[in-house]
């Protein structure tokens, strides 16, 4: 049973989803979905705890690698799976009241099935060691997230979902073209096997084209500036619960796939020395951070504000990846984790506002600090994390990034990072001011505090950003182990 754990992470939710459509009773399905999510979370915890004995490689159907599909679990994939399944579980625990209000009852069991499929796809992208499998799981998670986004209450939701579908499919198809060209050159789809065969064909133009297609494809999925245009609308018009889950996890898993692409399949030598991808990444991320943060300041819808902030935060992760040393990579990976918690938590706060106030326009939220004190306070704490104030999770990863930039003597990058944090102060403070220091709008005046069933999960996530800000053994510590093993693999590849 224990050695089957890697495959169970995928099989349990994948089998559960169609079953839940057949069951169709929304209360029962909700309960079972929560059960499945927490079970999967338990499995990923046990997988991560077994990492101290070395990485796990699971051969599907007993076909030996590289002929069959391999699921490989190492520090990085176990870590990403842990927070993806963890947030999926906590968000679905938080969800029932919000979904009741925002999604029509007849669609509930379909909603939960799509939610599980989305989680399956994201976890599958993390665990699989087969490149084509990454594409399939990418499409499973994308298709289900398009469906989830289109369930939003306003009529703009289907349009936002369709735009995301078109751009997302172009991105995924780019990725598929890249896989095809790689397969053409190496004759294998197994990631480790491709890596070992790439040395021989590294200098060919096909390799460059393959790498370019895959990079651009993943950039679209990551919502890197300037390919982020799908994200603000998709996040704004999706149901609150969907935004919580997708904003916290989906883009990060694409970042994870990008890290795998650079550090495991191609080598950093190929991406950063033969090609100037590190400078390009740095430029894209810094411009993205500034433009998106500035755009966030001018938004009048709180969800759209956070969506632009997400685009900016992806920049910090890529900045860490582009540094290509243990410090930078650790910062990038731990920022994936920290930002997932912070943004997940903040969107959960927004979900509470949506439930009680019914509008997400900033002018309607005026004065909500008096009628919804607990929810508003959660915003303050989460916002501090987003800015990167000491004692919060956001501080840990930004500090790591800063020290890494300084050790590489990238002074302009360090200065720009600090300046960009000031922009975050502005857009977080704007909301705080509206919540606490403005005369109450009539919607906020009559609002009640959010129900405990939603506040407790929100506070667990928001509280954990404080916990992981002070105690970093299991966040930055694991991220560092993952970074070291990635760079270790790539160094060994360079020697051969």
């Amino acid at each position, binding site marked *: 049973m224990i050695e089957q754990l890697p495959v169970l992470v995928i099989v349990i939710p994948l089998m559960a989803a169609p079953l839940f459509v057949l069951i169709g009773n929304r209360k029962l399905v909700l309960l079972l979905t929560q059960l499945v999510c927490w079970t999967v979370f338990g499995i990923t915890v046990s997988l991560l705890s077994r990492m101290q004995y070395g990485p796990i490689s699971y051969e599907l159907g007993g076909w030996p690698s590289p002929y069959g599909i391999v699921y490989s679990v190492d520090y990085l994939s176990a870590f990403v799976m842990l927070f993806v399944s963890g947030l999926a579980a906590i968000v679905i625990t938080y969800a029932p009241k919000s979904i009741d209000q925002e999604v029509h009852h007849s669609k509930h069991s379909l909603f939960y099935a799509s939610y599980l499929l989305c989680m399956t796809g994201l976890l599958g992208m993390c665990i699989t060691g087969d490149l*084509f499998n990454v*594409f*399939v799981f990418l*499409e499973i998670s994308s*298709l289900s997230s*398009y*469906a989830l986004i*289109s369930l939003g209450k306003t*009529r*703009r939701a*289907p*349009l936002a*979902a*369709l735009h995301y*579908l*078109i751009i997302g*499919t*172009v991105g995924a*198809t780019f990725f*598929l*073209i890249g896989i*095809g060209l790689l*397969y*053409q050159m190496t004759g294998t*789809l197994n990631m480790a096997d491709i890596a070992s065969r790439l040395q021989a064909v590294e200098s060919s133009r096909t390799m460059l084209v393959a790498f370019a297609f895959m990079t651009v494809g993943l950039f679209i999925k990551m919502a890197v500036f300037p390919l982020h245009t799908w994200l603000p609308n998709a996040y704004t018009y999706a149901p609150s619960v969907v935004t919580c889950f997708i904003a916290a996890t989906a883009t990060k898993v694409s970042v994870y796939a990008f890290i795998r692409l650079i550090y495991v399949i191609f080598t950093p030598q190929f991406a950063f020395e033969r090609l100037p991808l590190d400078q390009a990444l740095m430029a894209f991320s810094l411009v993205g951070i500034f433009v998106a943060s500035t755009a966030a300041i001018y938004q009048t819808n709180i969800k759209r504000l956070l969506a632009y902030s997400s685009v900016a935060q992806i920049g910090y992760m890529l900045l860490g990846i582009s540094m290509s040393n243990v410090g930078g990579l650790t910062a990038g990976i731990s920022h994936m984790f920290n930002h997932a918690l912070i943004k997940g938590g903040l969107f959960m706060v927004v979900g509470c506002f949506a439930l009680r106030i019914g509008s997400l326009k900033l002018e309607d939220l005026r004065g909500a600090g008096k009628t919804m004190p607990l929810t508003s306070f959660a915003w303050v704490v989460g916002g501090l994390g987003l800015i990167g104030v000491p004692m919060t999770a956001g501080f840990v990863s930004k500090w790591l990034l800063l020290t890494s930039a300084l050790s590489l003597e990238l002074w302009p990058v360090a200065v720009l990072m600090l300046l960009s944090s000031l922009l975050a102060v502005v857009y977080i403070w704007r909301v705080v001011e509206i919540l606490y220091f403005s005369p109450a709008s009539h919607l906020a005046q009559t609002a009640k505090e959010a129900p405990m069933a939603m506040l407790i999960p929100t506070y667990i996530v928001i509280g954990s950003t404080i916990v992981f800000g002070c105690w970093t053994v299991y966040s930055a510590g694991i991220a560092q182990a993952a970074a070291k093993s990635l760079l270790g693999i790539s160094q060994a590849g360079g020697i051969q």
Partner: protein
Amino acid sequence: MTEILGLYNYWIVIFLMMTGFYIVIARENLIKTIIGLNIFQTSVFLLYITMGKVTHGTAPILKASHGGESHGVEHGVEHGAEHGHELHAAAEGHVDLGVDAVKEVYSNPIPSVLMLTAIVVGIATTALALALVVRIREEYGTIEEDEILEMDRNS
């Protein structure tokens, strides 16, 4: 010159890819955009299938006479015993391959198999996209993107 003409499959791939991509970018009609997306995906199917083709290669079906595991039709009943012997030898690892077997060249089946999956993904994407277009039309009464955006701006 022969190099350029010999790669004609790839030229078709590039032509289809660019056509599809252009339609996705340039068309305002949502259905046309989806059709463009389909053309774009189809070009990738062709790319994969082209790369699986080996010159003079045939369909990758192992014939029994080449040490395969099934009774070939052409073998007939009388060859059954001999065939069994052959299988046994194959298991031991020193089967004497006939001249036929050396000549036989197979195409690579894996790209085609991958494309079966990609076609399924493509159909799912198209179905979902069309379903969304239906909902958009119910809400807005039109499927022209500029008109929809205009309505959103005014509301």
